[in-house]
């Protein structure tokens, strides 16, 4: 082991029910080259340190990338001070900070400046990475993306763009010109079986705010086999790549051996993108269970419905045997026409089949609905309501464990196929907002579906779902969000119309 040491840091704001997956990934990278490391989760520290109300206020500020009060900023500076204490304690050679999403930019910016101010004499290199390094927040980064802004202002030494599994290792080994380091020229990793295995040796999942038992995030694939019009996954991973089912199952088994945790949450866009690999995963898990009676894994992950001739009853039976507990299933719409336009590539018969099998084998689902899609007609919307009624039995039995409906309907995200289709669909934007998500749009090909109508449809869906006994995820927050959007509608006066540019 060489004398270098890495301090791996995650920052607000993130899910608090389990350790951020990146901590284990970077720990695995360090172990793969025998480099010492420590782990520090400042997000967890924040939750442990402050009252719920303070945490809620800070979380809102991080989501908006703006401190609403000096008091909140001071609270967060106490979190930053904890990092400084740890730096003084462990004297790391490198500090690796994960900027998970745009909602970590304010936290990262303040943290980096604080560290620079408080410990200029300590010699270490700062590395950042994560999806957030590609985001712009004009109040912080100006016109630059966060990674570029940090490099230009010398807040950091290195920024890793794209997947870090190999680039991070290369950087620690001194190969600072490896693709992806300080330049957005990385290529997608195509062989996931060859990257370092995540390590949970120094992470305690029981420190987190889990529900009935601790769970851990795992990754079996990157990218997606679909190219849904509203989704930007293809922007980050052009190809769908995956670990072999056997390797993935063995990874779960080894995590259980290390941590005792039996509950796993797949970060994959789809756990059944490759049916062959998915079957292999389930077969191997069943085999490991039979050899180790105490190994009783439960997994959840995002799932795509497939026709009954592709996913057979035996597949569902084996999923249940292997430990499939909850599937996050992107149905989006119960209209075949809408779903066809989305390129989801399954029909309503496949949805019936999926829920029938899940009900039979006791597999739960989180149902994702996307109301107010560009081509959605009033008839399509009424079909959504009819299907909620039809599947009430699944809501009450919790085969549909929960339902997620995004208030205000479809957001058109940069990097999605819908941006390319904007001209063809006559999509016009009513905002000149810098926000990357455009919710205030109209399609000339479906003019009745304006902002107000989308809000009405989503609000109606939430209302009907609630009345029928569905558990609407984040119900209280969604009602508040609907109220805010409604007030914004009332405030809106004739504003200029901007056309969405194709990318």
């Amino acid at each position, binding site marked *: 082991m060489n004398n270098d040491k890495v301090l791996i840091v995650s920052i607000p704001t993130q899910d608090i029910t389990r350790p951020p997956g990146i901590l284990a990934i970077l720990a695995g990278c360090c172990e793969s080259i025998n480099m010492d490391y420590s782990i520090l989760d400042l997000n967890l520290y924040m939750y442990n340190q402050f009252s719920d109300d303070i945490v809620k206020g800070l979380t809102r500020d991080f989501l908006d990338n703006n401190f609403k009060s000096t008091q909140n900023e001071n609270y967060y500076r106490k979190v930053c001070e904890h990092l400084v204490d740890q730096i003084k304690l462990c004297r790391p050679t490198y500090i690796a900070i994960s900027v998970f999403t745009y909602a970590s930019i304010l936290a990262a910016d303040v943290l980096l400046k604080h560290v620079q101010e408080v410990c200029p004499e300590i010699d270490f290199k700062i590395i950042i990475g994560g999806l957030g390094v590609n985001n712009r927040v004009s109040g912080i980064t100006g016109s630059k993306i966060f990674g570029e802004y940090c490099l230009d202002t010398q807040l950091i030494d290195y920024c890793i763009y794209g997947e870090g599994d190999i680039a991070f290792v290369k950087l620690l080994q001194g190969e600072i010109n490896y693709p992806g380091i300080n330049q957005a020229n990385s290529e997608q990793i195509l062989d996931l079986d060859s990257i370092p295995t995540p390590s949970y040796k120094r992470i305690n999942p029981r420190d987190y705010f889990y529900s009935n038992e601790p769970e851990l995030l795992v990754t079996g694939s990157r990218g997606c086999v679909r190219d849904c019009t509203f989704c930007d996954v293809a922007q980050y991973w052009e190809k769908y790549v995956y670990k072999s089912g056997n390797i993935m199952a063995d990874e779960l088994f080894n995590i259980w051996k290390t941590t005792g945790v039996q509950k796993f949450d797949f970060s994959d866009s789809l756990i059944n993108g490759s049916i062959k690999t998915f079957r292999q995963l389930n077969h191997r898990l069943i085999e490991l269970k039979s050899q180790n009676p105490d190994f009783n894994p439960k997994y959840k992950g995002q799932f795509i419905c497939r026709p009954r001739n592709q996913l057979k009853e035996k597949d569902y039976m084996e999923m249940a045997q292997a430990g499939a507990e909850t599937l996050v299933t992107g149905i989006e719409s119960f209209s075949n026409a809408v779903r066809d336009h989305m390129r989801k590539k399954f029909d309503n018969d496949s949805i019936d089949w999926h829920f029938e099998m899940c009900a039979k084998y006791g597999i739960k689902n989180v149902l994702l609905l996307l109301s107010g899609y560009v081509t959605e007609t009033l008839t399509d919307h009424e079909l959504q309501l009819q299907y909620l009624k039809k599947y*009430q039995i699944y809501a009450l039995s919790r085969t549909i464990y929960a339902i997620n409906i995004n208030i205000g309907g479809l957001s058109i995200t940069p990097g999605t196929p819908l941006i390319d289709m904007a001209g063809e669909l006559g999509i016009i934007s009513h905002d000149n907002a810098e926000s990357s998500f455009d919710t205030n749009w109209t399609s000339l090909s479906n003019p009745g579906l304006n902002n107000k109508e989308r809000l*009405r449809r989503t609000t109606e869906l939430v*209302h009907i779902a609630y009345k029928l*006994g569905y*558990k609407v995820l984040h*119900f209280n927050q969604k009602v508040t969000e609907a109220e805010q959007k409604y007030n914004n509608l009332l405030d809106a006066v004739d504003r200029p119309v901007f056309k969405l540019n194709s990318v």
Partner: protein
Amino acid sequence: MPNYSIYVNNFQLELVLTRGINYPEWSIEHDFEIISQVDTNDTQTIMVDIPIDSSCTSLILTNFGKTDQDTVIENGQIVRDQTLAINRVWANAVLLEQYLIKDQSQMMPDYNQSNLNYAKEHNIELDKVLYTDTLYYNGTWKFNFEQPFFKWYNRLLFEKLKIFNHWVTQSHLGIADEHQIKKLKVLLECLS
């Protein structure tokens, strides 16, 4: 064709029978059909289909014929015992949570004379009702429920749901506050 009714009109039971000298004898207080039976060693797994009226609110199974010889004892140890377990239950083809089945089950045992004698000798008061899904004695197993079944079932699920911290309650379970529900109705009226 799946049955989407929230009133139960069909149950399927997976019964697992273990043999003492003989297998248990059983009957169900409804018309039923055995749809499969698998025998392995001293165990039978039987799938039973029970169509019921949607006004029905109980399922009754009677277990009988067990004798003292069906508890096989060798060298002071029970090596084999006749039992009947209600292993899994489906209502309208939906697999139900077994812990709830167990909680809602009432077994009225019809003790053998030897059980009664043993209890008397050792001053043990035998339970008149057992809450179990595994029947070790002759007797009647009753599963009481309400209709519409799935509304009743949903209520039970939530009563039993154990939440260990409020972050999960708020963010993951769709817990709805009363004032937010009222606000939603008002919003919908304004938007309509």
